[in-house]
Every structure is written in C-alpha cells, then in structure tokens.
C-alpha cells in the first residue's frame, strides 16, 4: 500500500495561503510552516539550485523570496550550505516543496528546517505569474498570509506596506562583535582541498553588512586569517597594521541608508587594499562620490552575463541586488571594470592606484557559477603585494 506520506500534498486539504501585493493584486496557493501575516518586499530569484543558501543569505532580510524553479526542498539542508546561522528571508514562496530530502549531504528535510525556524512558506503558487507581475510593476512590498485571514482584509494594510528605501537593514543583520572565521570552502570528495598551514596567514578584515559565509570560506581558501568586524569598526582598527586588506561585504537593502559606512570607507581608500562585494561595491561607489539608484526589480539569479572589460570575456554570475551604482555619477578616475550585458548597469569598479576593486555580483557564488573566483585570488595577491 502507498501510505498517506506518498499522497501529493495538494490532495491532502492543505491550508490556504495568499500573497497580497501593494496595489491589491492577490496570488493564492497553500501554506506550510508558521501561521502568520507577514510583510516584506517581494523579490524573485531564477536560480534552479541553492534554496538553502538563498534563504540564509542576510541580503534577503526583509524580503519575501519567490523561487521560480519547479521543485524546492529535494536536497534537504546541510551545515556547509548555510550562508549564516539563520533564515533571513521573511517568507518563502514556491511552486512545490518537498517533504523529504534525497541527498547524501542532507542532515534534515527542508520543510522541517523551515517550520522549526518559524518561516511561513507559500507553496503551490503560480510563481511565474508573480514574476510576470513583479517584472512589470517592479519589486513591490506585499503580505503573505498563512493564518486563514481573508486576503480582502489585508488589501488596506498592503497598500501601506513599505519598501526598503531609506531603511538601514544592514545594521539589523550585521554582527555586533568581531569574530574569527576558520572554515574553508566546501570541497567535492572528488577534489579534496589541501589546506595550507594555519600559521603565516595574512589577516583580512571583513566589514560585515550582512556577510555570506561563502565569502569568508573563499578568503580562508585563499590563505587568509579571516576576522569579521561589525560595520561600526574604526579606520584605525582596520589600518593599524593588523590587516593586509579589507573586504566590504554584501548586505541587504538600500546602501544609502547604511549609517556611517560611506564615511568609514572614504577614509580607508588608499590606505589598504579593498575588495567590495555587492553592497560593498555600492558603498564604495557612494564613498567615491557616486550615487546609487534602485533597479526596477533588481537582479536575483545565477545566470546573469557580465563582461569583464579587461579580458573581454563574459562571466556568468550570481546576483542579488536591488540597488546599483549609477555609472555616470562616478568621478572620472574611477574605472568601470564590469558591466551587466542584459541592462548595461555597472557591475564592477576599481581605483587601481588606491588598491580598490569592487563587484556588484557575487564572486563567491553560492548559489551560482564559480566563474569569478579569480577576484579572490587577485585580492589575495594585492594584499600580499601591499604588505611586502
């Protein structure tokens, strides 16, 4: 006999869930996990793998994450793929969610993991329709309701839902105490990594605006001793000779709202080698005198083509940002190093004489292609050169 476990969940009288968008559009599906009414900015990601990474990425703080791929949850969850110690997305919306994992790497099912962490999940949604809506209306705030409240009752509240502009979300996700990070990148059993000696590692400071662990893992892989510092760190601390370089991390929301960051960074420039990633790139842009603007619906996915202007080669990149540095706002001496080939937006900048490089995309991937890992290697080289 097939057991009740086998029965597709859609035939088991699931609880309804609704997504009510500012503007009154309602999408419906079913609910698992927390019974809540939860507000957030609705964004979508078109990656076909890596749901655990996305959900734990602090950059999704404040957002209702919609995944477009057909099936989510099939590989469960595991400790190495977590990008932080918690789920940051406000809620998850998918077409289909698996009960049980099928992966040797998994140490638990995605559904249990999500439920235990109190995340509301909407499944059975027509995520494609949501994407089509967001694509035209732009990233909109909305409310996911999984507690049985009728969606009509929430239209008024949704109309007042706020976006992310002007909110310093980074402060909410960043660490408050500095800490050391030691774990290196995950390695396939077919390609075991040889870890270098733990002595003589140059130190790198990672200014945490909501850093993904993969960035830390990659830095360890490049031979760094990694220390994560809160965004309130002082210039003296960073430039006092302890560190060979500074990495400005990714983070959620509006870069212009991150208090004190631009000021800190403008004083770092020229003092120490810097690599900026995602929000780190935006903050560098601001510190250099540029402007950031909000994209219509952002870039969220693992398939965006970016041209590396120095080699002419196209990198397929992992992306997750709603804001971008306006190229025209940057002073002349700033070199544009990468551009996005789908919409021409800025994807990387550099100030070579000051030892500054930054990219808007995610070279640490996770999820996404490893095409740009070379940026970490180059950063390590720059740090070593500067130190010698």
């Amino acid at each position, binding site marked *: *006999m*097939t*057991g009740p476990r*086998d*029965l*597709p969940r*859609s*035939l088991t009288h699931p609880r309804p869930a609704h997504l009510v968008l500012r503007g009154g559009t309602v999408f419906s599906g079913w609910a698992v996990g927390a019974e809540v009414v939860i507000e957030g900015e609705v964004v*979508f990601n*078109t*990656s*076909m*793998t*890596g749901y655990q990474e996305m959900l734990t990425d602090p950059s999704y703080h404040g957002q209702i994450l919609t995944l*477009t*791929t*057909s*099936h989510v949850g*099939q*590989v469960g969850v595991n400790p*190495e*793929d977590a990008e932080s110690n918690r789920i940051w997305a406000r809620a998850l919306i998918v*077409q289909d969610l*698996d009960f*049980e994992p*099928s*992966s*040797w*790497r998994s140490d638990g099912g995605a559904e249990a993991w999500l439920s235990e962490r109190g995340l509301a999940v909407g499944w059975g949604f*027509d*995520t*494609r*329709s949501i*994407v*089509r809506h967001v*694509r035209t209306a732009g990233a909109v705030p909305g409310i996911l309701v999984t507690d049985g409240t009728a969606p009509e009752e929430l239209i008024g509240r949704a109309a007042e839902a706020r976006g992310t502009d002007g909110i310093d979300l980074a402060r909410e996700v960043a660490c408050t105490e500095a800490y050391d990070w030691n774990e290196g990148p*995950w390695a*396939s*059993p*077919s*390609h075991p990594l040889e870890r270098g000696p733990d002595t003589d590692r140059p130190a790198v400071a990672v200014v945490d605006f909501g850093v993904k662990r993969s960035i830390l893992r990659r830095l360890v892989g490049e031979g760094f001793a990694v220390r994560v510092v809160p965004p309130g760190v002082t210039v003296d601390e960073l430039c006092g000779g302890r560190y060979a370089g500074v990495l400005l991390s990714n983070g959620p929301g509006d870069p212009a709202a991150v208090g004190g960051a631009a000021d800190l960074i403008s004083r770092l420039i020229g003092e120490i080698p810097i690599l900026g990633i995602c929000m780190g790139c935006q903050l560098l842009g601001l510190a250099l005198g540029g402007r950031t603007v909000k994209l219509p619906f952002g870039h969220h*996915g*693992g*398939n*965006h*083509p970016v*041209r590396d202007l120095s*080699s*002419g*080669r*196209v990198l*397929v990149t992992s992306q997750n940002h709603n804001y971008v540095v306006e190229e025209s706002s940057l002073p002349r001496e700033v070199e544009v190093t990468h551009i996005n*080939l*789908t919409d021409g937006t800025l994807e990387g900048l550099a100030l070579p004489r000051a030892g500054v490089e930054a990219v808007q995309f995610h070279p640490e*991937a*996770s*999820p*996404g*292609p*490893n095409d740009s890992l070379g940026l970490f290697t180059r950063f390590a080289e720059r740090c070593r050169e500067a130190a010698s």
Partner: protein
Amino acid sequence: MTKPSSVCILGAGPIRIGQACEFDYSGVQGVRALREEGCRVILVNSNPATVMTDARLAHRTYVEPLTKKTVIAVLEKERPDALIPTLGGQTALNLAIELEESGELERLGVRLLGADVRSIRLAEDREEFRVAMKEAGLPVLPAATVTSIEEGLAALDTVGLPAILRPSFTLGGWGGGTAHDRESFELLLKKALDASPATQVLVEASVLGWKEFELEVMRDSAGTFVVVCSIENLDPMGVHTGDSITVAPAQTLTDREYQVLRDAARTVLDAVGVATGGANVQFAVNPDDGSYVVIEMNPRVSRSSALASKATGFPIARIAAKVALGRRLDEIINDITGSTPASFEPALDYVVVKIPRFAFEKFPGADPVLGTSMKAVGEVAAMGRSFEEALLKAVRSLEIDRDSLEAPREVTAADDAELEGRLAEPTPDRLWELAEAVRRGWSEERIFAATSVDPWFLRRIAGLVAAEGVAADALDQPKSLVALKRLGFSDDQLGRLTNSDPGSVRERRIEAGAGRIRRRVDTCAAEFEARTPYLYGSFGDADEQPTPRRPVIILGGGPVRIGQGIEFDACCVEAVAGLRAEGYEAVMVNCNPETVSTDYDAVDRLHFDPLHSEDVLDICDAERPLGVVVQLGGQTPLKLAAELEHHRVPIWGTPRDAIDRAEDRGRFAELLSDLGLRQPPGRMVTSAEEAAEAANELGFPVLVRPSYVLGGRAMEIVYGHDQLAEYLERAAAVDPDRPVLLDHFLERAVEVDVDAVADGERVVICGVLEHIEEAGVHSGDSGAVTPPVSLPLELQAELRHQVRLLALALDVRGLINVQFAIQGDTVYVIEVNPRASRTVPFLARANGTPWAELAARVCAGASLSELGVHDGVPTEVAVKLPVFPFERFPGVDPLPGPEMRSTGEVMGRGRSFGEAFAKAALAAGWRVPSEGRILLSLADRDKQRLPALAARFEELGFAICATEGTAAILHSAGFSEVTKVFKLGQGHPDIPQLLADGAIQIVINTAAGRRAAQDAGSIRRAALDAGVLYFTTIPGAHAVAEAVAALRRGPLSVRALQDDAAGPPPWAASLGD
C-alpha cells in the same frame, strides 16, 4: 581568423538508431545561421526525407552518399573555404577526420570549423580521453584500452567485474555491453572489437547504479562558457542515455555539487581543446558520497543538445554555427527575448521529461533489456510545471496506448520475484514496473535496492500512484480535480478513475478552474518578456497565449518510430511555407524534441505538447484555428481527426469520411468495385477451419494478418496448409472476436507507389515509384526507383488514371498515396492512404517540387490550376534504399518482409538506374564491389530465374560460389566454374568463415518459410555481421548487378539539386531566409 565566404556542412545521412532526426534539426539551424552570416552554404546529405535537403535551404544541396570519395568530388566542384563537421553527428565527424587525415582538406584549401581533428580524436579515443582527463585533474573510471582478447583479459585484473565494453568510433554505443563474468566478457569483447572500425575497445570499470548527469555547454572564441542545460537521467548508470528517461533541469544535486560538475565540464573542454562550439559532457555521480567521474564528452551537437535546445529555447546548433565563424556569444542576441545576449545560462521554471520510444515489437527475438548500446528508435519530451505533470504528458505523447502509470497486463501479471527481476534489468516497461511495485506496497528501500533510481523520482512516482487511489470522487470535488490535473493526470485516466468519460471530465475540470493555459518557453523564467511564441500547455493563473491572427494548426507526427519517421516532419515543415504563402499563421503542435517542426524558428507559433486529444483540444480552444491540417503527420493526427470533428474543430483538406472509406475493409472494397478497380481477393475468417477453406478458395500463397493489428504487424506470407496452421498457432489466435484476414498473395508482382495532390477537380501526380523488391516486402522496406524502369508507359498511364479516379471519388483535398501490385498486365490496388505518405519528400527531391507545401496550399483553398502545378518529372533516375537496424539486434534474421523494420532511407541519383542504385547502396553504408566473388543461395521457387542472374554476374567478371542446391542447378545449366560452399557447420570452409575472411563480396540469398528462414538466416546474419552487401530478392540482385556495372564504367559524378531546375518555380515560397 578571416570569415569564410563559403562553407560546406555535412549531414548525418539516413536515420539510424543512435542518429535520428536531431541532425536534421541541427543541420537546418546551421544552414540558416550561416546564411544569416552571409555565407554561401553547400550541403551534403544522402537522406532525402530531411528538411535540410529542401533545395531552397542551402545554396548548393548534394543528395549524395556521405563517403570520402563523394565528398571530395563535391569539395572539388564547389571549393568552399571551410567545412563544419559538428552538425552531422558521428557520421560527419568520422568523415571529417578521414578527409583531414588523408590530406584532402589541405589539398583543397578547406579548413575545418568548429572542431579540429586533434580534439575530435581526443574525445573519441577513449584511452587518449582518459589520459587527458587525468592530466587535467579530473576523475575517470579505472579502464584500459585493448585491441585483442588477450589484452582484454589482462585488463580485467585492474578494472574488475562487472566491466563495461565500449568500442571506439561507433554510434550510440553500438557493439558495447556490460560483462558480469569472465565468460560473457570474452564473448562481448570479441563482438566489441569487431564493431569498432579501429578494432579498439575500452574496458571500463562499471559504475552501475550511480546517478547520471549530462551538461550541454557552449563556448566562444573569447573563452566565454555557458551551460545551456543540465540533464539528469532517471535511469541510473548502466542504461544508455539515449534509452534513458531524462529530466531537465537536474533535480537532485545541491548547488555546490552542480557547480563542481559545471567547473569540470569547462575543464573537460579545455583539456580536449574545444575552442568554440557546443559540446556535451556526461558524468556519473556516486549517490553515497557525491564523488563523480567524467564518462565522456562529444565535441559536437548531439541528440542531447537537440533536447536541451527544445527544453530551454536556446538554439544550440544555430549558435554553434555562429561561434564556429568566430562570433562571440555576447554579440549574438537571444532570439527569444530579442534584447538579451546569448552569453547567459537559461533558467527554467518548468520541468522537461524525455522518454525514449522503442520498437522491440518489430524484432521478435531481440533482447529488450536496456544496456549500454542504444536501442530506442525515437523519443518524446514534455514540459510541465512539475516533474509529475511533465512525466505524464510525456507518457501520453509516446503513442503506445498508455496515458498513465497504470501498468499494462504484462506487468501486472508478473509475480513479485519476476517483477523484482525486471526492475533490476530495465526494459522499456520500467516506468510502469516502478509504479506496479509501488502499487504492491513495496518500500522505497526495496525498489531502490532493485533499481538504484533516485528516491526523489521514486517518491514522485509513488505520489502519482497514491493520487490514483483518491481520485474516485474527484468530479464532485473541484479542488481535488484541479490538483489532479496539475499533477498531470489525463482526462482519459480520470474518466476511468471516476467511472465517467473523458468528455465529462474535461467539462468539469474547466468549470473547476483547470482549463489549460499556455505558458511560454522563454529561457529566463519570465524575468524578461519573451517575443518568440514557443508555448506549452499547463495550469496556472496567467495565460500567455498571444492573440492569434488567422491561425491554422498543423498537427505533427509525434515520436519517430519504425513506419512513421522524419519524412512526415519534413512534410509538416514544408506545409508551414504553404500556409504562410496563403496568408495564414502556421501553428505547429508536436512533442518530438529531435525535429525541425519543434524549432520555434521554423513556424509562426509552436505548441510543444502531446498529440493527444485533450491537449490538442485545449490548444484549439486557445488558438480558435480557422483550420487544422491532419494529413501531413502520418497516422498520428489522423487518429485525432474524429475527436476534433466531434468538437466542431474545422479540419482542412480531405474529409474525414475519406479516411474511413480507405481504412474500413468493407467500404474500401465497395469503393473499388464502384470504380471498377481490382484488389487481390481476400476473406476475413474467424476460425482455423474457415481459414483453411479460405486459403483453398484464394489459392496459396496467401498473405495472413490479424485484423486487429495495424501496420503490417504479425503479417506473413504463407505457402501451404501446414504453415498456415503453424501461423495461427503461433502468431494469431483466431476466434470470432479476433478475426484473421487472408488475401491471395500476388507472387512476383511488381509493387508501385503513386503519390498525388488533388484539389477536388484536378489531380496532379507527384511521382510513380517502382519497388525494386517484389510484393511481399513492406513498401517502407523496399528499394524503389523513380521514374519506373520496367513498367511500360501505357501501364504507368493506367496507374495515373486509377489514382485520379480514387482521388476524385474520395474527394481528396491535398495528398493521397496509392499502392499497386502489378502481376503480368493486371493492376491491383493494395492500399489507399488519403494523406501524406513516407515517399512524398523523396519525390519532392527527385523532381524539385515541394509537394507537401502545395498540399497545404490546396488545404487552404488554393486550386492546382491557380498554383500552376503539373505532374512531377524526375530530372534524373532516383533510387531509394532502406536502412535497417539489424546490427543492434543480434540474433534477429535480417530478412525484409511484410512488416516494416527499416529506420531510415537514402537516395541515390544518377543518369542511369545502375548509377543511382550504386549511389544509394553506398549511401546506405554498403561496400559495393566492382569485382570479386558472389555467393548465390536461392529458394526453390526462385531457381528458374537463377541462370540469367548468374550469367549477368559472370559477364561482370564475378566469380560465383553457391550453396549445394543452387550450385547443382548452375552446374546443370552449364556454369562449370561455380564452386560449391558449405552452410554453417556443414563443411569446411563454411559461409560465415568465408565472409569473415573477406572471400565473398556479394551475397544473394532468397528464402521462404520459417524453416528455410532460420537456415538462411545464418547466411544473411553472417553477411550482415561481416559487413558484406547482401540482397534477399532476385530483382534486388539484378539491381546490384546494374550498380556493379555502373561502378565499372567509371567514377560516380555528383550533382546539386539546384542544377535540376532552371530557377525557382512561381509558387515556391522562400524557405531559406
């Protein structure tokens, strides 16, 4: 690199197992892409049933054998700057290597584009490949390349058992296998060594049961690398990927594991040296610890790249052709979005499932267990919002009378032990066996232990089985009904489960909110707006059907199978041009990912969906077509006609009643007698006694077949009462419910196929094809020639007259095919098909007229007079020869008979019959000798025709040897030089030995009856296995003699199709641009 101004593309030749119509698709894309780039394109392909050989596509089209000699002749004539060998499968690659290594390309100043010989060699030579992988730091399986049995046995020490044998340079893994013990290892190794043109076999450790993945990748000259699609096989390692059920995108990898494979794929390309173009890389992944090995890579477009192109909307072949010219991916615009560059990786928000289609029923005695040598003849794919929906859509696309996971009787009848055994040795039924195991309550662990199918797939299948169990009251529960539809359940199955009928289910589900909507395949999961109308049906909130503008639907042919192949796809694609010329939008429906018809570029709108009534009706609801054309896709669309008509969908062309009149035995007889035409006398019987009586009345030999089986299945020619009784015992239980048909068999009759187009007033004859084989061989398996070589003109006129009578009587609008048998001066009508036949594209190539396009225009209301069309006139003699898959089915007698078994065809054109036949034989892969020794072994009934045949070969300078009876007759007829040879085991040397030694160049072996067939089978089989030209009929033997004579006269010339016509006829629509 300077851009070449003229480029030669090599096609893949005839459709074979392992090399099907995907190379027509890639070739067509390649030609179009090169034209866009301003190149003059020269195409060589021997397969006339392809879209690519339409003379309007390339600038110069050579329907000539894909042999070194002919291609050199073409290159000498056309002097192209470059040659692209990566679009025509293994055939083109092997040929390109041959040309390059012989120095001919250099001599002619032709450079290879898209792949260099070193990388082709490296990818093909498994040992070199392994070494290169190891050097690049990539894991591979323990293996050794061997060239003898001794070396093989030595290799076993390191490789261990089970071991996989993979011959180098063969198609679709042909000649390989898995050995579980030393004994089978030796046997398999011998075969594998024979199969490899280089007598080289890789003996490889087996990773049976590991998960199998494939990445389709592209790279350009700037080094930009993209993965177009990841594919996961539901069948784990051990089943050839062409025989596997496959799923895109990959489902059971974490992102980190997937990226490891992605990085490895790039390293593989680096290591092999693929600078630009498309390639696929296969991986096996250990489900227990995620370690992996690189299995192989193909530095060319392939079956999988066709699937990946259709699955994602990313046209791999087209873009491969452009990057071969030096274009960068970021310079090429993604057609689908019209705004983003091709240097990205498609994101899918749906699942694609491919299921292969098999034809084991055609090869009794063939082993249906799936292994490392591909056996599928075709495939279907389907798209759904979930794996389940895609899987069930793919099942109903297969056209194997199954619309669900409900197991057929042969599966449910197996006891548990038997079922377990079958699960461990996968056959084409494995999907239903998995479902049956779930139904029997077997645990996931037990099923996994037997099959190694990933638990994720097993749970989804279990879910579908569980859902069947709660569906009974679905009609009263709208939510359940919607959920079941979203899971992919068909209206047919829900009709059965709810004790209702499909029509009511359809009504209720539409009421409940499960009306099908159209979704776009857009390469980007809706992130950007799609421009290209490439759609599939599913369920959800937002319908993406574009507003139709005078739409006319063409129903395609579904999966390629024996009897319904690529030729129907060529007809459907040609019809697009016809409908456009008449001012309509041509909307295609098809589910075959290999074909040109499922290229969104080839049509105005494409619905990639099952050719199943509910799906087609739902498409009609979305399109509201002005008409539906059902006559071009073979039997598949015809079977849907009644249902469509019932729903008041306008069917264009011949009225449906004509189909019934042609198919219903009684009405057909009435039609012929009304017109005063003859058919061979026949009777339907319901008992063995009646059968014997009927046979006496009709006179032996009789052609017998069960009335309830279509398409020549189980059809046999019976020469006497014993054989009749034996047949009824073995092949066709006869009773009142299952009548058997007996027809007088017309011995030594000449069969003729005539195709025509009619508009209700005029009938234009496309061509008359005389079969080379006599009646008794299925028309699809018979060689044929146009214009006829042995039919007097008056007789041909009579045939044309009869076709006109039939077409007008049936009120045909569009194409009709009539098969005749002519015995003496008497003309018998064997069969009438009021639809496109498989010979239509052949005739189109032979006389330079796009018949299917004209038929489509007639369907749209144009008259033949308006179109200015006249009877087709071949410019040269054109011969069609079939290609058989017998080498894939060891132990099967390679004797053509009433049941069709060929997978493809070739065309040879020449000034004489002999020249055309020689070319066709070369194109079909035969070695046609100009001298040597011929073996004659004839059935008694053929022996009076023996002396003339022997005399002809003697005249051509051939030595003759013969089996005992045949030799005796020849001696007594005065052929003193004839040597007697022995059948297998009857003396030394015996025939198989002589064949293996190369002492015989031609075998003529005719046989009748099953006993003789078994005996003769060994001669034919031995000839086949030794690669020696063999023919099984007297007329076939004479044709071979003509071919030999032509070869002795001098080298064969080549001629482009474009040289046939003075210019494009007035009605010819543009196809190329």
